């Protein structure tokens, strides 16, 4: 065998989410503490491929990234009709908990980015005891909208191209060009209306202002890391959110934007490795 085969393995698991069976695709590598990684809106688990291949981290963590329903290789469920896809706080929360239960993960760490970062806050509010630690990347209780999401899904605009062009500005300019292109490629491949449907959670249903104060970091540690070039979830949004959560640990990441794990994996590693080390040391 001459090919350089990566250590990532991909499989499917059938999961009951809110009474509906879903065939969920996930990839994983490593052994040890389960670390479940959540992708951003309108993308898929490929965003995490660099982290999953990390030699050192894979010695201590079983790193798992799954495609949310309707994303990547997790098709819409068989029961899905032609109705519009909309992610909600309840369905997102249940998808994560059901996936963790299906794999029998014992008190996993969950790390989510963007919408994944927002839902991590909800996990901390309502289900903290189920998790060893929670990590929110580009996470805040609320962010000001900066464009009309109707442009994301209409027949006279190419959805893939407009989705990618909108988020391209959220990537820091210092990252490798290949990583930038790959990050945007994921957005170009999302199903019609899926990015918009995810943003229903982000903008309409998932406003956590006034709720994050309930988070008890003594039950479950919370880490928030935000890239300085993210103008969707700004550093100020994250810092404001953290001020309401005693014990939340905040890092503002230089030369990174809204997609730290995929837009500049080397730069991101400098920030996430110490966090994962700290979680491991805490036992």
């Amino acid at each position: 065998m001459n090919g350089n085969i990566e250590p990532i393995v991909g499989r499917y698991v059938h999961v009951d989410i809110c009474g509906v069976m879903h065939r969920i695709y996930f990839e994983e590598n490593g052994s040890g503490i389960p670390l479940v990684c959540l992708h951003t809106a309108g993308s898929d688990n490929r965003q995490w491929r660099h982290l999953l291949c990390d030699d050192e981290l894979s010695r201590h963590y079983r790193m798992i990234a799954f495609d949310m329903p309707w994303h990547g290789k997790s098709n819409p469920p068989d029961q899905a009709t032609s109705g519009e896809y909309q992610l909600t706080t309840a369905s997102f929360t249940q998808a994560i908990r059901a996936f963790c239960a299906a794999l029998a993960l014992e008190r996993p760490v969950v790390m989510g980015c963007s919408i994944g970062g927002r839902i991590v806050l909800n996990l901390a509010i309502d289900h903290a005891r189920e998790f060893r630690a929670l990590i929110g990347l580009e996470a805040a209780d609320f962010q000001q909208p900066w464009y009309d999401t109707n442009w994301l899904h209409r027949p006279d605009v190419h959805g893939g191209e407009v989705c990618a062009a909108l988020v391209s500005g959220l990537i820091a300019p210092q990252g490798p060009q290949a990583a930038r292109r790959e990050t945007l490629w994921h957005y170009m491949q999302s199903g019609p209306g899926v990015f918009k449907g995810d943003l229903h959670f982000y903008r309409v249903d998932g406003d956590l202002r006034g709720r994050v104060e309930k988070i008890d970091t003594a039950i479950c540690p919370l880490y928030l890391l935000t890239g300085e070039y993210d103008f969707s979830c700004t550093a100020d949004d994250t810092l404001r959110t953290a001020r309401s959560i005693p014990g939340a640990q905040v890092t503002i990441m230089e030369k990174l934007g809204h997609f730290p794990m995929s837009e500049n994996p080397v730069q991101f590693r400098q920030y996430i490795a110490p966090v994962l080390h700290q979680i491991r040391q805490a036992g």
Partner: protein
Amino acid sequence: MTQPSGPWITNIFATLPKLLDADRELLRAGRWLNVDCLLGPAGQPFLVSIREGRITEMSALPKTMPSWRFSYTASPQAWIEYWRPEPKPGWHDLLALTKRGEAHLAGELHPFMTHLQYFKDLLALPRSVVSGKSA
């Protein structure tokens, strides 16, 4: 440090047609685009005619009966910051500028949104020209 003035920004904008003509990838991205739009400094924008991705005309806004589909205008500081080789956070993207109130996007936005990356890249072309001059 002396901040560039309004005429400096206007002169930089005047280089856009040539810069675009030299960028084959951007011309390819805009090959289906035909639009008249306002681009430039707030208060003194250019009326820009784009045909099949090329800028065919660019002039000061006519006093009588100007016609355009959309406008993207920004403060002088916004253009200076946007054109830095490594723009600062929040000044590095056309929509980051609108979010912070330093730029204004208005009109019939369909041609802008169908070619959003084209316009981001077009208006970033001067980065290669002003490198080191405005810092």
